[in-house]
């Protein structure tokens, strides 16, 4: 793909007519994405330095500072010692709550059969697994995690 830099020619009548045929109903309300992004940027602006690799950003409590944990070869998040990201502060987390692992160049979130479930903002219901998008906000129990992937 090599987009041209030429200026946009005014469309001819037939082109406008063709566009009107494929025109989907206008969607005025993009609020969910906007709100998701507002939260994501608020997370990122609170960090002294933006993450440089795929990471989870979270706070251990309301007054705790945000932390950045690189996912590296994979990460299991939970309350118990057996989790690679152990968060004993998360009372509503299961011992092994969810994991994020690299999968064919993408990042796969998997709920590890947690009691309170794992949710991703904008996705209805609990998620069993999900290939994460840059800027996804993950809810596990009462804790929130922002997934960022600067390589994306």
């Amino acid at each position, binding site marked *: *793909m090599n*987009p*041209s*830099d030429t*200026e*946009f020619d*005014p*469309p001819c*009548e037939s*082109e*406008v*007519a*063709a*566009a*009107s045929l*494929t*025109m*989907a109903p*206008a*969607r005025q309300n*993009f*609020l*969910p*994405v*906007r*709100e*998701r*992004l*507002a*939260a*994501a*940027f*608020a*997370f990122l*602006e*609170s960090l002294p330095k*933006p993450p440089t690799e795929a990471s989870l950003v979270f*706070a251990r409590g*309301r007054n705790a500072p945000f932390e950045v944990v690189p996912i590296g070869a994979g990460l299991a998040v939970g309350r118990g010692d057996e989790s690679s990201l152990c968060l004993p502060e998360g009372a509503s987390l299961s011992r092994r709550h969810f994991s994020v692992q690299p*999968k*064919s160049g*993408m990042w*796969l979130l998997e709920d590890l059969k947690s009691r309170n479930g794992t*949710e991703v*903002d*904008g996705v*209805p219901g609990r998620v*069993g*697994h*999900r*290939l994460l*998008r*840059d*800027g996804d906000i993950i*809810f596990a129990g*009462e804790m*929130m995690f922002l997934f*960022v992937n*600067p390589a*994306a």
Partner: protein
Amino acid sequence: MLAFAQLSGHYHRWCLLIMDLATRLSLLERLKRSSANPDWQAFYDKYCAVIVSFARKQGLDDHSADDVLQETVMVVMRKLPAFEYVPQQSCFRSWLLTIVAFKVRESRRRSHMDRLISMDAESGEGGEPLHERFASEEPDASENVEQAWRTSLIEEALQQVLGDPRTKPETIEVFRACALEGRPVAEVAARFGIKDNAVYQIKNRMMARLNEIIASMEKAQGSPDGATNHEKAKVPS
């Protein structure tokens, strides 16, 4: 925001998040962003409709189109500080188009992978998982990205022309009949009880308005902050 949060069942969490972040943001230098980096919300407002329309034109559903929008804004805001205006270089729109097209392809690939992973999870059988066996087999992607983007721009401009509350509904109907549905001028004139010349005038006026909107969108999309076409930008390497 309220309706969305209630619907998705995250209301109390959102309240905590907003309260928490509001405190943090007031304590932190909220406007620390450099002036070269425009507010992400301004960028979002300017481009969201066209990006979503483009993504849907590429065959993505609403959720995937929203994901493309989310990821595009994340990438643009991350890379924008490295974006430098240099005359005679590729413009911001081209750079943005490259990002959006890439995100659309990625979204398609992700949907493909998602299906394979779901099938693996349902089958629960041993052996090589489907998502590893077929990960490289991506569905065909449309290559005519520039044309699809152009159509998205025309559509967005057309939405604005047809939705302009200052235009009389009858004028819009005349334009729709003669320019969009291709009805003969005489037939349209008879239907609306006006002269042929009035139909031509309405059509020309509306087409001129459409071109005006497209020109203004094109100008605004030449750079992240709406710089004119002669202020071109250099894509960060």
